[in-house]
């Protein structure tokens, strides 16, 4: 009897602990790290790699993703002979798992983009565009990762469209591609919620539209976004959806910790983690970045100056000619403050020279302006210092000064020497700096052409090959009679 009781006790004890062990919840921690709007800034990749390696050492389930705009913003990458190559190379070496298309992914042209897609060791997804050409770009709309424990993490992506129905890139880069409204299109994929443990919107819409998306689709657990270069310091859930973005230029990343119990999300925690301040760095990537930054690409010769190009008249006229080289522009202005060197010496002109001359990255804005409005711009600029400020292409002008030294009247002259009519309308190209910082009349609000003044100048000189601006002068001043 005693033996029976002791056997029964052993059996019951074993059965109890087995049942407890069988009912222990399955707890999983998933880490998602998102970098958005890196814009070809490669210097922090060694730190990012070290940061990700540390996270991967401490956590079993980690995904590293990009929320768009990998390209455009660093001549080392943008002017590389195979444009964008260094960026994808470093992203591959860092171990990105997924990327999406931002508006700047189209900047190098579709053929180069196809090469970058081919180069990437990670997929690039987007749900709201496709090429009309069967050989064109046809991204898959979503990606579901199945982790080693069976955890399913689904990502769907859409790209921002501007009021013209296109992403913010030059329209010439987007020919043959059909875009549909992202906020509407993404609704078609809400069914993925049922087949994923964690469902993520990886978007390039801008923070305000990400919040709208969260308020519309609570199926998402989180939305990791880009485009507006927003740095979220205090993460907040909107309609139960965590919305994050990490600034730009790979200074920070978003790190999301999702805890699941028995496949259900029980907590989400988001933080903005500094990459630039991370103490470690990957030694192999340090060497890779140094190699890319060695600037052989920037030393490319793009043309020859047949004589010194000296002073604001000559340099400013050259820069303005770079703007009117664009098909859309007939008249352009360049402000004196934007001319950052005193002389371009006779001889070879390199890409580096152009970025020394024009380092600001200002985009070209197209405004339709009549003669009166152009005069208001010239008057405002002249009266700041009572000196010629704006150099010009496509016109010449003369400022007649009053006894106070300010502009009393202005005349504009067409290339044939005739005076321009006040009511004639011109397609004027100005830097974004001039449009925002000068107080002048313009009915047309304008639109960006998504090309920088520096890039336009590089293109102009590359096509012309030889340039000579000796004695060029297009802006004059004299006392009014």
């Amino acid at each position, binding site marked *: 009897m005693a033996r029976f009781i002791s056997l029964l006790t052993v059996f019951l004890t074993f059965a109890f602990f087995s049942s407890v062990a069988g009912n222990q919840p399955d707890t999983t921690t998933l880490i998602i790290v998102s970098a958005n709007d890196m814009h070809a800034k490669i210097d922090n990749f060694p730190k990012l790699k070290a940061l990700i390696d540390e996270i991967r050492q401490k956590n079993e389930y980690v995904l590293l993703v990009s929320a768009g705009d990998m390209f455009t913003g660093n001549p080392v990458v943008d002017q590389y002979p195979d444009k964008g190559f260094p960026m994808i190379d470093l992203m591959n070496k860092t171990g990105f798992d997924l990327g999406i298309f931002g508006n700047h992914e189209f900047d190098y042209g579709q053929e180069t983009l196809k090469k970058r897609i081919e180069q990437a060791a990670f997929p690039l997804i987007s749900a709201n565009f496709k090429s009309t050409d069967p050989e064109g770009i046809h991204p898959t709309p979503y990606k579901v990762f199945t982790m080693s424990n069976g955890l399913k993490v689904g990502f769907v992506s859409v790209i921002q469209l501007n009021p013209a129905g296109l992403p913010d890139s030059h329209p010439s880069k987007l020919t043959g591609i059909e875009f549909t409204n992202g906020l509407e299109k993404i609704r078609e994929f809400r069914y993925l919620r049922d087949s994923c443990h964690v469902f993520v919107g990886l978007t390039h819409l801008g923070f305000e539209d990400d919040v709208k998306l969260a308020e519309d689709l609570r199926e998402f657990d989180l939305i990791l976004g880009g485009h507006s270069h*927003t*740095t979220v310091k205090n993460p907040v859930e909107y309609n139960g959806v965590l919305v994050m973005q990490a600034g730009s230029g790979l200074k920070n990343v978003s790190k999301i910790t999702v805890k699941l119990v028995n496949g259900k999300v029980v907590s989400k925690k988001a933080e903005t983690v500094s990459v630039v301040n991370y103490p470690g760095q990957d030694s192999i990537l340090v060497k890779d970045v140094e190699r890319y930054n060695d600037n052989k690409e920037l030393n490319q010769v793009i043309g020859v100056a047949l004589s010194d190009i000296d002073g604001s008249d000559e340099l400013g006229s050259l820069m303005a000619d770079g703007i009117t080289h664009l098909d859309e522009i007939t008249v352009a202005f360049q402000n004196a403050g934007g001319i950052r060197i005193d002389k371009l010496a006779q001889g070879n002109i390199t890409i580096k020279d152009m970025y020394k001359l024009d380092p600001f990255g200002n985009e070209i804005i197209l405004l339709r302006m009549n003669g009166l409005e152009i005069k208001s711009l010239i008057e405002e600029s002249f009266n700041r210092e009572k000196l010629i400020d704006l150099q010009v292409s496509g016109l010449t002008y003369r400022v007649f000064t009053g006894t106070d030294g300010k502009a009393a009247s202005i005349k504009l002259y067409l290339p044939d020497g005739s005076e321009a009519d006040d009511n004639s309308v011109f397609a004027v190209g100005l830097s*974004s700096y001039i449009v925002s910082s000068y*107080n002048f009349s313009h009915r047309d609000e304008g639109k*960006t052409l998504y090309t920088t003044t520096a890039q336009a100048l590089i293109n102009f000189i590359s096509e012309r090959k030889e340039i000579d601006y000796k004695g060029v002068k297009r802006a004059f001043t004299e006392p009014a009679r």
Partner: protein
Amino acid sequence: MTVYVNNISLPVFDGATAIDAVRLFHTRFSVGVSPDCEEIYDSYGNKVEPDGRLLPESKLFIKFPISINPSDPWQDS
């Protein structure tokens, strides 16, 4: 398109960035300090980088050291 800086509507060119809107705001109200030094925030209290693209109706906030002159000196054409 129209965006808002400190709840004041501003017409800006399509594709404008945060710094473009802030510069325009400074130009319009003759703030007299460099707009390029401003920290820019969205309506959720998040910091916005100067080169962040704006959407129509975007709302930005900056510190504004002087009171706004209610009569707008800029005559829109």
